[in-house]
């Protein structure tokens, strides 16, 4: 029963935490992701993206994360407005920021990862299997992204107080749009 509650809390902490409280907690995770990501060369260059980049600067690490969070929050806020008028912006801000927290696992895992030489991988894709740590990071990224998406879904659900197909469809569209917006913004800033 206790483990069920714990897993429920891990998937939907927003029943208990939202608003400024979750924003503060989410911001702490984002700052850690920025710092550790810069050390491990893990760039979060998109709402659902993670790439290993050579010589990632601290400034770029935080710039990527800022673009991610801003794109996600703004698009989800607009999506929320189409679902309900009866919600607070600070709940979307806080819950969506905290929903990025699982990516911290990838930033930490990146510290133990050696990226394969991509020019060689392009010539011979089998070369990628020579870097076990890289494969582990790739495999780890799947549950982390699923966890983060589940958190984002519950963030929108709790913040706007809506259910059903309309929520699911709006969420999927908003997630894809936020990913596209973050990519466009990063392209412009680059």
């Amino acid at each position, binding site marked *: 029963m206790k483990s069920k509650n714990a897993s429920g809390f891990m998937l939907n902490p927003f029943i*208990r935490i*939202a608003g400024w409280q979750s924003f503060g907690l989410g911001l702490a995770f984002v700052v850690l992701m920025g710092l550790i990501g810069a050390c491990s060369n893990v760039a979060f260059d998109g709402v659902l993206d993670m790439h290993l980049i050579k010589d990632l600067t601290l400034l770029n690490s935080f710039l990527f994360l800022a673009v991610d969070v801003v794109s996600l929050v703004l698009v989800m806020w607009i999506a929320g407005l189409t679902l309900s008028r009866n919600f607070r912006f600070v709940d979307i801000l806080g819950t969506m920021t905290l929903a990025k927290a699982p990516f911290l696992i990838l930033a930490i895992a990146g510290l133990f990862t050696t990226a394969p030489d991509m020019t060689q991988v392009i010539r011979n894709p089998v070369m990628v299997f020579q870097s076990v740590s890289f494969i582990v990071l790739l495999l780890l990224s799947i549950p982390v992204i699923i966890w983060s998406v589940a958190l984002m879904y519950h963030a929108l659900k*709790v*913040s706007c107080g809506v259910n059903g197909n309309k929520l699911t469809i709006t969420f999927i569209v908003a997630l894809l749009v936020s990913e596209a917006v973050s990519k466009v913004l990063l392209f412009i800033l680059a």
Partner: protein
Amino acid sequence: MLPTYCPSCHAQLKVKCLKCENCQTEVNGSYDLPVLARLSSDDQQFILRFVKNSGSLKEMASEMKLSYPTVRNLLNEIINKIDTYEK
């Protein structure tokens, strides 16, 4: 807790008889239950808490150890139930 639904067919119950404990007079009829009495005991507790907190959802959230939007969603669910009963 006042029963509000039929234990056999789950239909809404009505008040058939009220009795004065002082003079033993009984008033018989078929009266609808008040809207608030039709809500579940959890919903009634929520409304009591809402009134005691002067309608402050923020204070209720901290008292119930829930987030503000969760408490607001619970209130919205009760409002929807009341709207349904009033129809």
